[in-house]
């Protein structure tokens, strides 16, 4: 007897509507290994299409993914994925999830197509459908020509792609990618990023991308969750954060910079001197660029270069690391 697949046919929206259960809902989730707390009272609901999981080494990124997958039991609190509890409904959750582990993981003495097929079958696909989708997944990730080769003979980049293929072969609704670009050379990295963005843009799956590389997250994700010492330092929508963030102006001046700086201070703007004749200014509410031109004229200072700059992910990340917990 075959069971109906529980995968929805409709593509998911950019963000899950507030009436729908969030992709991941954290209810005071804490995880300890022995007496060592790893995750501390994580709270929040993540609704993004692609969520970047950031944090320094040992922040708890991988532990969070493993806990959501049911590999570690929470010491207190719980979490829900698509409204299903990670403690009570582990199997149902796992049938909706694809996971690409960080470490080199494969089944030895198997060709890639055999490996991906086995993984698809374990996810519940009938044998023939599993074989068909294994071929498709391997073609999709770019391993079509090498799919009959044994996994042991694959390069690191190919192994990463094979891991991605096994994570998506059963068409999951949520894909956890743990450091997917680890150890990849630049072309392989670009290929991986392109695939992740394609999956995201297909609208059929949410992605949680854990990475040390801010650029990877910046290129793929619309939301970020920054962990620090097992706590949430920042959770924000990347685009909205950038928009709402104060605009920076990078200015290069010639002339008496001190007077100009004092005048800027009087306007109520924050500034930072970032090198010889270079200023980084944060425009306050009500202050326009023309005000700066006026000040420059008054102080007899030349403005040689002026460019807008928004907070990069790096800025957000570094601020989170400096500021502590609870957001920017």
């Amino acid at each position, binding site marked *: 007897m075959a069971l109906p697949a529980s995968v929805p046919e409709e593509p998911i929206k950019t963000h899950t509507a507030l009436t729908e259960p969030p992709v991941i809902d954290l209810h005071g989730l804490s995880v300890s290994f022995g007496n060592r707390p790893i995750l501390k009272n994580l709270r929040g609901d993540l609704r993004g299409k692609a969520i970047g999981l950031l944090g320094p080494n040992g922040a708890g990124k991988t532990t969070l993914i493993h806990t959501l997958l049911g590999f570690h039991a929470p010491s207190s609190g719980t979490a829900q994925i698509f409204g299903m509890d990670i403690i009570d409904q582990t199997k149902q959750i796992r*049938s909706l999830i694809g996971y690409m582990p960080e470490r*080199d993981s*494969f*089944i030895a003495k198997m060709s890639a197509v055999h490996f991906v097929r086995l993984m698809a079958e374990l*996810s519940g696909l009938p044998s023939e459908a599993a074989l068909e989708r294994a071929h498709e997944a391997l073609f999709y990730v770019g391993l079509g020509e090498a799919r009959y080769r044994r996994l042991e003979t694959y390069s690191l980049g190919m192994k990463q792609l094979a891991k991605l293929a096994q994570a998506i072969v059963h068409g999951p609704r949520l894909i956890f990618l743990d450091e997917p670009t680890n150890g990849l050379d630049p072309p392989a990295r670009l290929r991986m990023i392109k695939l992740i963005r394609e999956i995201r843009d297909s609208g059929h799956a949410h992605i949680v991308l854990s990475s040390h590389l801010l650029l990877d997250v910046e290129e793929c994700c619309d939301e970020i969750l920054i962990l620090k010492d097992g706590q949430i330092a920042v959770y924000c929508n990347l685009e909205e954060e950038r928009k709402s963030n104060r605009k920076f102006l990078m200015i290069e001046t010639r002339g008496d910079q001190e007077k100009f700086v004092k005048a800027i201070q009087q306007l109520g703007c924050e500034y930072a001197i970032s090198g010889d004749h270079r200023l980084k200014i944060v425009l306050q509410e009500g202050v326009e660029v023309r005000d700066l031109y006026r000040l420059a004229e008054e102080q007899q200072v030349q403005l040689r270069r002026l460019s807008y700059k928004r907070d990069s992910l790096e800025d957000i990340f570094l601020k989170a690391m400096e500021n502590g917990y609870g957001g920017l």
Partner: protein
Amino acid sequence: MAVYEQTYKPYKGTLTPEGSRFLIIPRHTLRGVFNSKLFTAFYVICFLPPLVEAVLIYLHHNVTALAIMNVNARQLIPIDAYFFQTFVQIQGWLAFFVALLVGPPLVSRDLRNNALPLYLCRPFSRTEYVIGKMSVLLILLSWITWVPQLLMFLFQSYLEGFAWFRSNLLMVSAIVISGIVWILLLALLSQTVSALLKWRIVASGAMLGFVFIPSVFAGIVNLIFQTRWANIISLFALMNNVTAGLFGTFDRITGRIQISDFDDNVVREILLLEPPLWACWIVLFLFCAVCLAILHWKVKAYEVVR
């Protein structure tokens, strides 16, 4: 996600029932196992004893064949409980070597290549994983242990008649239970060793050592202390006792030592007593429990460093 479309699409088809998914593992593993010609050849050899058994049973009932060979039926081995017990034990030895070849890499290979998270991130539990891996051996070993013996029993019943079948019906349970207990022990032992040691050769060596070293040690202790109680640590001896118990041929006294004086008068007689059956069963049960505990401890997606 068709090959020509090259886009990501969810799977919309039907799913297989959860209860039978553990059988996916033996199906894929057995294909790899029989890729080895050497193993296949050995596995075929394992069917020779049942073939000999079939010939012996046939000869017993074919007067013409006996006349041609000029053999009296009484000279042949009698077809009774001892007959089947002997062949069960021969097949048990062969099963041990099959388990030695197939068992050790089953889990160790997955541990070495960090494959466990790939299994366990799916709707597939640790229990299903262990049962799936054990099924590889349970299936392979069943075909060379209790299944052919059961067929031989039916063959003998067919030739001897219904009365023989009815009077020896207990032998069916003896064949099946002793076969299943032995292959379960072998499967558990090989999985446990495989889960503890990541390298196949080391795991095979450890399995061999785990079975033979206690047996040799038990033999030495038995010899020195003039006893048979040391057999309690020998897996082979325990299994022989349990099998004999199931066939109804178990006798605790397996030897006598007579101490005589200078005039050849027996001054003392020592009976060499095997451990009682209940003790054998308890030790086997404990052995299984320890193996399961180790498997529970080792078969995890990730080792937690505390």
